[in-house]
């Protein structure tokens, strides 16, 4: 399953972005269940394994992450994920786009009233 370069620099979806960030945070311990746990811990909401799994799959198909199979001592074979350079570029672009959007946005007054 060779990485497919996305035709455009379309920004990542929110959940895709979250999953990629969780993969980065887990370092070389990033597999489906640990990514789900990390997301649950940080976002403080329940996340179904299926949606994580499908998102990881899709990101890999887009070439934004890559996976390797690793045989551990405890005999459970795991599929470990790492973010590719392409993925890093995409994350950075998404963040830059968001930052541009945030420029000049003033929320403090609205939050005070809330």
């Amino acid at each position: 399953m060779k990485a497919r370069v996305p035709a455009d620099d379309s920004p990542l979806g929110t959940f895709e972005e979250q999953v990629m960030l969780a993969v980065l945070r887990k370092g070389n311990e990033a597999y489906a269940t640990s990514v789900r746990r990390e997301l649950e811990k940080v976002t403080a909401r329940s996340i179904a394994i299926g949606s994580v799994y499908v998102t990881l799959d899709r990101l890999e198909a887009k070439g934004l992450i890559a996976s390797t199979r690793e045989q551990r001592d405890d005999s459970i074979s795991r599929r470990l994920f790492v973010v590719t350079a392409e993925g890093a570029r995409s994350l950075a672009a998404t963040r830059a786009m968001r930052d541009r959007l945030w420029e000049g946005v003033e929320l403090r007054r609205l939050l005070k009233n809330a």
Partner: protein
Amino acid sequence: MTGMPSFAAWCLRRLLPYAERDEVIADLDAEYRARRRTRGWLSAAAWLGYQVAGSLPSLVTRTAWRGWTGFEPEANRWQPGGPMFETWLMDLRYSARRLTRRRTYALMAILTLALGAGGTAAIYSIVRAVLLEPLPIRDEAAVGVFWSPFDWTEEEFLFLRPQLTGFETVAAYRPQDVTLETPGEPLRLIRGIASSAELFDALGTTPLFGRGFQPGDDVVGGERAAILSYGLWQDLGSDRGIVGRQLALGGTPHTVVGVMPRGFWFPTPETRVWVTTPLSFERRSGQYALVGRTSGPAADQMDAQMRGIGQTLGGRFQYPPQWDKTRSPALTGVREYLLGDLRPGLLAVLVAMGVILAIACVNVAALMLGQLGGRSTELALRTALGAARQRLVQQLVSESLLIGAAAGLVGAAIAAGGFTMLLRLLPLGALGERATLDWSLFWAAMAFALAAAMMIAVVPSMAMWRTNLQGTLATTRTGGVGARGGRLEGALVAGQIALAVLLVAGAGLLIRSVANLRAIDAGVDPRGVVVADMTLPTHLSNDQRRAAIAAAIPVLEQLPGVRAVGATIKLPLRGSGQNWGIRIPGRPEVSSTTTAFRTVTHEYLDALRIPVRRGRGFVASDHENSERVVVINEALAAKYFPDEDPIGRRIDTGFDGGERIIGVVGNAAEAQLTDGAVPARYMLYEHVPPVWHEVTFVVAAERAEDLPRLLDLTRTVLQQNTRNLALQRMMTLDSVFDLAVGAPQRVATLLSVLAGLALVLGAVGVYGVISHFVSRRTRDYGICMALGLAPRRVVSEVVARGLVLGVIGSALGLIAVVFGANRFSTLLHEVQPADTQALLGAVLILLTIAVTASFIPAWRASRTDPSTVLRQQ
């Protein structure tokens, strides 16, 4: 500590990709255990439930589009070019090749299914429109028709009208066919009803637009109102502005007040106009029927009220004992009254269609079974090579689907064509406006027949070759039939013969019944007589009408090849009607009774060859100014002059002074054919003051071969030479006969078509099964003959088997006929349900088919050279 519930594990296992499912499930399981330990069972279960349920949508979507392995998308199986599609395509192609090679089998199966389903759908659609649709009458259970229909006078109705207890409203009506004159178009005769003002209140129907009749429409001197049927309104141009306009009906201007909705009919579907008629106490004649809407109870629960009405009548009118109207008062439900006589005939046709469908099922099953038997080697071999059962079934299903699709196309054409044909052939009138072809029934019948055939044929054979693969392959190698005795095939043949016997014998009974009807002596010679129905304009006086009739006679007599020309107000076999009161001087007991009364011209009796038994017929010296004379028939003589010579006695019809009887003639069927001889009397137009506005001319040809030419000549002459006579229709006396025998004959025609169909289908099935049975044993016979068995023995063995099956089937069919025929005995005229001729005929025909179907393949088998057969393997 237990792991996660097995259902959750099963769900995840089904949906997660093969490569990772163990890993993910193990992780989830570990977390489930941990949660259960720390937070309790309920919380862990809720978490797991969320994990599974929340994962389903995304995992299902992913599985569908990418597959378990990522290489084999599940969705592709259903996409064009996908594996599933590919196997179906492959099987369909294979089936198509097989079917084109076995053309007879394919054609038989397709035609059988198409005829069965298409025919059933067409007939059922007609039957539904006629029998099953609600009558166009509101709350029909409360509507009923009084006893002695068409025997009520205006005086009786007007007397009863204000004192009918238990009824909301009661209307009087009688058939009145009227002429319709529209500018620029020829005069035409339309079926109509003359009624009192209450008719549409009693029926509870309102017009599509305009109004119904109102009180006051039926008083003497009031304006005449007319309501048109939807069909007539369309014929007149579908103009809503017609309401309020005047229409010349029967020469009298009527105001159109309304138009009935599409599909409305009463009392017959052919009725096209309803008019009010002025009612008068003075009028003791007028043959009305009374239809009433009860004030609540169903029409068949009105016995007490009807008895009361009978007593009221008896208190006012004196009835002679033989015509006592107060004796059996009753109210007949309107549905039973209007449709009663149609029901058994149509039910018989419906049953016949069911039988046809059953034959079709059995037939296709037998054909499929034969095919499967021949393919057991192939199927067993494919199983042995690893074909899954699913794939084998798919192959058989695809073949049935191909047959079904082709039969669907052919059957749809048969259904549509048959339906249109039946609509045209049957006199449905307004009923036809509502009839639509029932496609859902067609597809249901098609699917049912196909599914039933597959159930019968495929299931047992599947069981056979799957349980005994080795045996199947072994017997195949030796080419023998093995242990299977063909019991199923035998049962199918017997069942098929039973169904065919049922249908053919039923049709036979009906055909015999119609033949009996025809055999009744009508008293007239119908051969070579032209019948021309004419109308006289209603504005002419009686004398002008009489002159118009008299003027037409010599013109017709001039035509070449004419034997005799006559005219009458009503022909025999056209039902009762024109019954006029009779009084015999010195015989007060026959004061208020009627007999059939026919005004005729001099040569009328001669033209119809009604024989003079005593005295004389009319002669030229009986003219306008001579003594008024009458000719009576034998039935009248026997009824009123039982022990004396009627010649010279007098009868009084009410024309001053009465008339003298000059002759007695043979009985002609002056009512329905089945009514037998009714008393009737004949008088000359010259001696009867009132002249009816309808007249029927009869032109008898010298030779029957001249009839078509004479028909054309008569038409030309009548259209050219007569100004005061409008030609309505022309026919031959033979077709008047046909009309009189009509209803049972139509049913018999339909049934004989169906019986013919059943015969063909049955023969095909029987032939197919028996010949297949024999051809599979050809090798056995070859061996037997090689060992010295006489070819004759082979033939006799096979034929005996066919005969045994035929006898069993016929016995079953005969039992069914005898039970079923009692149900339809009203259709049978002087034929017993167990009529030996019809039943024996059916059995003989089918036994002959069974024997022939056995003989031909057996004879072929006996002629085969044993060495050829043995070499074939």
